[in-house]
């Protein structure tokens, strides 16, 4: 490996740049199946024609599973927002457009969003009654087949110098209901402490996709529960306040 530099370090993975390539190196705690799933998702989404880094190889380096993909030269949208706070609205606009373009694609090979959410709900340590309510709610939601990113946030968008946006990080990609994907993005803004950004995002998404806000909101308890499954103790109280609601009777 001839890694020039480390681009990002996470709990259980590190991202390196190696010339025109990027190596996403997972440590041994990471499930092999998840790595391969991420690689497969990325390969499948490539076929939709969306602008994403092309996957080059999946390999094991020093005992660590690694996804090698094309390096996209540019800045993440998160960084751009930070650097140019006055242009945030413009970036948000672009961000929503990009998400909607992605939702316009179908990719039959991806996992089903509903299945994924249902598993996540069962993985949580929530009381059985709450899980039952969440499952009932999920059951009643319309099932679609749009490409959903599952972690669509500004840090996963890179804008190249000529302004072309690329979407990265397909670990959580599924096919399903776009409003669930939007609810998830909304939650990610909140978790990131950007409540104003969250609200602006939701307004924009609803306006551009001609969706009722209430419809996106119906997904909030479900996406909150799936986030809870990650077991982040700091988020727990906040997520529970979103989860602990009732469907009217």
């Amino acid at each position: 490996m001839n890694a020039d530099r480390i681009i990002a370090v996470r709990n259980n993975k590190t991202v390196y740049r190696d010339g025109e390539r990027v190596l996403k190196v997972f440590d041994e705690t990471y499930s092999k199946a998840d790595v391969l799933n991420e690689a497969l998702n990325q390969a499948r989404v490539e076929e939709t024609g969306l602008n994403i880094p092309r996957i080059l190889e999946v390999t094991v380096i020093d005992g660590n599973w690694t996804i090698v993909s094309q390096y996209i030269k540019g800045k993440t949208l998160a960084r751009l927002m930070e650097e140019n706070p006055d242009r945030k609205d413009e970036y948000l606009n672009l961000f929503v457009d990009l998400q909607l373009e992605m939702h316009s694609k179908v990719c039959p090979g991806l996992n089903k969003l509903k299945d994924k959410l249902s598993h996540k709900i069962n993985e949580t340590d929530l009381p059985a009654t709450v899980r039952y309510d969440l499952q009932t709610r999920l059951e009643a939601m319309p099932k679609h087949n749009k490409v959903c990113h599952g972690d669509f946030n500004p840090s996963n968008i890179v804008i190249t110098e000529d302004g072309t946006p690329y979407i990265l990080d397909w670990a959580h990609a599924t096919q399903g209901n776009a409003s669930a994907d939007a609810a998830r993005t909304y939650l990610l803004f909140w978790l990131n402490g950007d409540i104003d950004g969250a609200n602006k995002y939701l307004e924009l998404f609803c306006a551009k996709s001609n969706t009722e806000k209430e419809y996106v909101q119906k997904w909030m308890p479900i996406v909150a529960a799936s986030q809870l499954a990650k077991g982040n103790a700091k988020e727990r109280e906040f997520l529970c306040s979103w989860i602990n609601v009732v469907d009217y009777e």
Partner: protein
Amino acid sequence: MENKERKIVDSVDALKKVIARVREAQRKFSTYSQEQVDEIFKAAATAANQARIPLAKMAVEETGMGVVEDKVIKNHYAAEYVYNTYKNVRTCGVLEEDKAYGIKKIAEPVGVIAAVIPTTNPTSTAIFKTLIALKTRNAVIISPHPRAKKCTIAAAKIVLDAAVAAGAPEGIIDWIDVPNIELTNLLMKEADIILATGGPGMVKAAYSSGKPAIGVGPGNTPAVIDESADVVLAVNSIIHSKTFDNGMICASEQSVIVHKNVYDAVKAEFAARGCYFLKEDEIEKVRKTIFVNGALNAQIVGQPAYKIAELAGVKVPVGTKILIGEVDSTDPSEEFAHEKLSPVLAMYKAEDIHDAFEKAERLVANGGYGHTAAIYLDVTTEQAKIDEFASRLKTCRILVNTPSSQGAIGDIYNFKLAPSLTLGCGSWGGNSVSENVGVKHLLNIKTVVERRENMLWFRAPEKIYIKKGCLPVALNELKYVMGKKRAFIVTDSFLYHNGYTKPITDRLDELGIEHTTFFDVLPDPTLSCAKAGAEQMRAFQPDTIIAFGGGSAMDAAKIMWVMYEHPEVDFMDMAMRFMDIRKRVYTFPKMGEKAYFVAIPTSAGTGSEVTPFAVITDEKSGVKYPLADYELLPDMAIIDVDFHMSAPKGLTAAAGIDALTHALEAYVSLMATDFTDGLAKQALQMIFKYLPRAYDNGQTDVEAREKMANAATIAGMAFANAFLGVCHSMAHKLGAFYHLPHGIANALMIEEVIRFNASEAPAKMGTFPQYGYPHALRRYAEIAEALNLGGENDHEKLENLIKAINDLKARVGIKSSIKEYGINEKEFLERLDEMVEQAFDDQCTGTNPRYPLMSEIRQMYLNAYYGKKHFVDEEKPNEADIAGTEDENKVKKAYLRARVGAKRA
């Protein structure tokens, strides 16, 4: 008991076993008698009733929601009111029977009911659903909510034990012990019907399970208080309802909309009765507490007002009944504008009643479609407001001056509203039921209907005067019996100018009856001619109409009569075709109020003097319409041969064959009866015998003329009741297209029609209950027999009949093809399709024994045009096809037996 060995249902396998077992129990139960069922119903209701307090305590303890004392009422209600309402209702076996009409309704159970029970009414709904299931011989498997499973199961068990002790099959009620979504879905998929009460998620899941579902959904009840309302009654009713079980009844008021003129009074009354009005900042706090991301916070459901206030950081006295937020917006983004399942109420000020209705409509749109709406007003003066409210709101229950929680469930504040804890929300709420759900929704009703024959009738003018020279005698009656003063004569110019009307007018003069004559009727009368006559009638104001002439004059006079008495009627309405004269869309106007109708035929053919028909041509479209209604029946017919003597040969022949066709068609008609059969045969015998003589020596042979005059009227009475057939349908259009005399047109088509009708395996037979199978061949043979035409079998008899008719036609100078009447071939072919469709649609087609396809009508027209070949059916399989097979003999015998039986019948 079986329950001791009952295994816990906590897995797909266990549930599948239970479903199989319950299904078996239900199969047994479905054979129970009404008496057995009623005993079980009573025992179960009694047991549930007795357990009302422990069950209420369990429910509050387990769910942490609601008020024990109110849950006691709900349990009590579910047991007692439901029992009382249905105790005497028949739910097993024959529900009703009408032997005369041959109809019977039989109640059958639906089978296994999947009952989804909500957390808000976990015991009372369980009692309700199990009781109505038992009453209808259904089994129930309950899917409780995990939050309330213990108390729901306890309630079910109490009902089950009592039912089994009273004789119900073991295990007729069962449940899921450890509910999860997979089991609930499986249950809904396997059940025969789903009774789903719960949130919209559950209801949607029920509907998408693929099984019939009676699901009911959420409400968002607005209560409007009009300025005319009794404010004290209104406010206290709302408090009573809203605090019931801490606001957890789905019909509970969620907002009050108050007319501005009583707003302050309403507010003061709420305050005086222990309700708390939230201040501006407190409203915001409560908003954010009760709703999270637009969803209702689970922590506040069914909690007392002070607890909710506490959660929101608002201090209110512990005894506070309701938290009221005064808000303006009814937009979905306003939290207060939604269902709150707690003693939290929104209050709106309305500019006027219309503003109030608009707000109520918008609130219902926020998740309360199909459920309930309430209004308070003065019912003695404000019925119009109730009507408007009822028509505008898309809710299935509209409650007036009634607390909605206790009012919507029925039988408490109104005794005709069915008691129920499952309230249908109609299509607006995505439901299959819009009423309060009850036993009728859990039954399959079989309807057993026996074949019945239609009632038929025999109708004729009240007076038919006959015999040579009877006219003056009959006319006397107009004066001396009826006291008539003004007669309007309708005739054609030939008869008028040749003095044929003189005997009538002279007689009228002698009697001192004023009269006038309209003599512009042309053959095949038109609508405009009828209009002109009616115009003159209106000017003259007759009390008697005398139609004098051939069919043309009589038919024209009938239409003038209608237009005179009912100038408002639309001709096209009268001409609208019907399948059954009793079921026709158009109601013919009542005739005879202004004028008495006398018909005096001068040709022996149409029978119009005794028929309810009038054939008229719309000169604009050229279409010939046979109108029919018994209102068109003349009041008096005078058959006096003196007026027939002068008829020329052509008329005698054409009219005579017309009468012949009437008798033939009436005899084979679907509506033929013993009454018309005799008339038709008699007419035919007379026509065959006397038409040649009347034709040859019409001017002198009084006997032949009289016989023909009578025969035409007798045939008229036959088809006035049995109606005609496709020969007349085709003749009407042929006559209209090419101006052929009506009798000639019939003569040209009749052979085709006889051959067409005589088919034993027609493409389609006519539809009429008494017409059991195609048998026109036999009917024609009967005519041949009556005419003594000979023949070994029915086919020979048919051929003899056809030959006799053809001979008669030739004898009276009628040509044998349409072509010979000089109708251009090219034109005929060009207009054929149009003529075919019109003939198919003619009023006479419906009673033909064989239902004609348009292609068949076309073929008959073509055959009649060239006169070379005749109608034959398309080839079909027949008896010959089974010849040579092993069971040929068996089949043939059976076939013969069937034929003989059919003939006897």
